[in-house]
């Protein structure tokens, strides 16, 4: 067991051993979700605050379910129900939460670095559930878990991440996690969506979708947001879909055992054709299932769990 952190702010800084520990713990906790009685008492008496300052369905539900399956008490706040709409600052809101002695604050925020700000201000563990365009570590960990489950050891695997890299916290966290685990990573997309100096993260860059598809063992598609069109990043969704969307036609060039991932929510017919998202190579729903297991593992590990206590 190799995990001694108080916060999880990002994939950056996690060692290979720590990631292994998280994944192994998640793998062992996964089966709880398939029981008749989906609950163990491990975190009984612990309080988890889900503080979602940005809309989210999947991640928030996943965290709530994860906490509940471990018997933690959970409270959920969203931006619209918190005092933030009354003009309270993030730090003040957090200090008030802190005064109620939660054990973990899970935070999703539209601005990069918000979890880091909180971690400097309060004593509870901070678990980053996505901050701006910066990081989304639990997504990367559930992706790593899914890849490992489907493809075996991550070291040496070829992973193509395709789409809007520049605005994607999922891409950043995955790149960091995959590189730490020894995978090869290529990013592909229109050059307007590939940030400057991305190669300093250890990735290859291509603007050719088919080049990436042919090369990859794992294809990770990213969601493209319509608002990016207004930022002059691409001419139209139609053109985006034609040159950077994954469809049955260009998928023919892929390896026969390729897996296709997507962090969701998917834009059917834009970055991914429905037949691909629902097709045999797709592991998109496995990612969601593993999300619960990974979040259970993190809640457990951050609260200082010991393997011996894990017996249900």
């Amino acid at each position, binding site marked *: 067991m190799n995990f001694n952190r108080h916060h999880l702010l990002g994939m950056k800084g996690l060692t290979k051993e720590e990631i292994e520990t998280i994944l192994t713990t998640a793998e062992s906790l996964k089966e709880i979700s398939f029981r008749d009685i989906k609950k163990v008492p491990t975190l009984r008496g612990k309080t988890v605050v889900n503080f979602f300052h940005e809309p989210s369905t999947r991640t928030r539900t996943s965290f709530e379910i994860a906490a509940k399956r471990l018997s933690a008490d959970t409270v959920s706040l969203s931006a619209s129900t918190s005092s933030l709409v009354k003009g309270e600052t993030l730090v003040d809101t957090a200090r008030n939460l802190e005064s109620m002695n939660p054990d973990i604050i899970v935070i999703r925020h539209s601005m990069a670095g918000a979890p*880091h*700000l909180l971690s400097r201000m309060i004593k509870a563990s901070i678990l980053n559930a996505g901050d701006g365009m910066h990081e989304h570590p639990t997504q990367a960990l559930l992706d790593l878990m899914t890849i490992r489950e489907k493809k075996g050891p991550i070291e040496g695997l070829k992973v193509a991440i395709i789409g809007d890299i520049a605005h994607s916290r999922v891409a950043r966290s995955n790149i960091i996690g995959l590189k730490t685990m020894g995978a090869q990573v290529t990013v592909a997309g229109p050059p307007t969506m590939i*940030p400057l100096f991305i190669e300093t993260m250890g990735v290859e860059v291509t603007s050719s979708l088919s080049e990436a598809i042919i090369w990859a063992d794992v294809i990770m598609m990213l969601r493209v947001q319509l608002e990016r069109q207004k930022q002059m990043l691409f001419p139209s969704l139609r053109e985006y879909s034609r040159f950077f969307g994954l469809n049955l036609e260009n998928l023919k060039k892929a390896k026969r055992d390729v897996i296709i991932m997507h962090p969701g929510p998917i834009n059917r017919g834009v970055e991914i054709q429905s037949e691909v998202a629902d097709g045999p190579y797709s592991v998109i729903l496995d990612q969601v299932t593993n999300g619960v297991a990974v979040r259970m593992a993190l809640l457990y590990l951050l609260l200082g769990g010991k393997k011996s206590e894990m017996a249900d």
Partner: protein
Amino acid sequence: MKWLIRGGRVIDPKHQVDDLMDIYIYQGKILDLQPIPAKRPSKGLSDFRVIPAEGLVVTPGLIDIHTHLREPGFEYKETILTGTQAAVAGGFTAVACMANTLPVNDNQSVTEYILKKAKEARLARVLPIGAISIGLKGETLAEIGELKSAGVVALSDDGHPVSNSQLMRRALEYAKGFELPIISHCEDLTLSRSGVINEGTVSTWLGLYGIPSAAEEIMIFRDIQLCQMTQSPVHIAHVSTAGAVQLIREAKKKGLPVTAETAPHYFSLTEEAVIGFDTQAKMNPPLRTKDDLLAIQKGLKDGTIDVIASDHAPHNTLEKEVEFEQAAMGIIGLETALPLTLGLVHKGILTLPQAVAKLTEGPARVLNLKHYGHLQKACPANLTVLDPDLEFQIDIHSFRSKSKNSPFHGWKVKGKALLTMVEGRIVFNQLTSIPE
């Protein structure tokens, strides 16, 4: 009061003086400067009070060409009183304050108000900078003649670049008739908008929108071309990129009346200071790369950059202790500019006289201040006595400034102002040997 500043190393870059000298001060003016005599006459000296400066450096009073004093309008960040307290503690005897107050300093009433407050404070001289355009909106010229009559020393829409090239051209032409330099905040807003740090490796890793170097350089190029066309002086504010240094170097080679300043953070820190989302490292222009930092240092050394300015930008904790993207841009600098500048001397990048010039002769030349920035008989006795080798640790809690937003807290630095004199009055004194 009569003063004798005795036996200091007097550095006056304008007159190329670097000698051990005595300076006599009478009625707020410099009465005389004398090389140290073998034996001082005892007769007639008894009524001069002595400031023993042996082993110390005496310079013309430092001038900060780029300060935000925040008053009127933002007194919770800084006032003219607290800002000038910070100034004199940092060795500055004069500060030029930017026009982005509330109301904006785009008319004589605001200028007069600033000067009145400065007079009440009786610390550093305050040199107001007027707005180029009404309300800093970049649409209509402010009443520049009236501003000049009220006492402004330059014009700038600092914080808000003049995006309209026609307006910039007319401002340059019109201001020339009133002998007012224009200080240009160079930024192409269509390129920089929504950016919060330098666009580069760090912005890519942190997922923050970047401000590319090109956003600064494009506007500098435009202003240089307008300078060439109008032959009106342009002073480029807070230069932060290697490309900008090169553009200015070439403009100066052509003999254009272009001058430039940088701020200590641009030669002391890089974009890496932002890692961890430290809002104290958020400023505009943003901290750049190591290459830019080295180019700025080179530009200072070869004279491309004439001035070191603090760009003192006070902000309340409330405006910094927030999400990075929401945090205010800027840091305070009046109390750290001198030690950080002297850091370049200790690193062997500038000579001591060169460093002093960037804080005295340079700003005085840009602002056409005839009696400031040098030491001469009959000039106002504005002087700074400093110990270039005094080591100390920067502590924001010791700052006179009302705001504490500095990324240099805890830095060990070398070099400090020990005494600041404005028009013959001691306004800051840490020389224990002198009675108050």
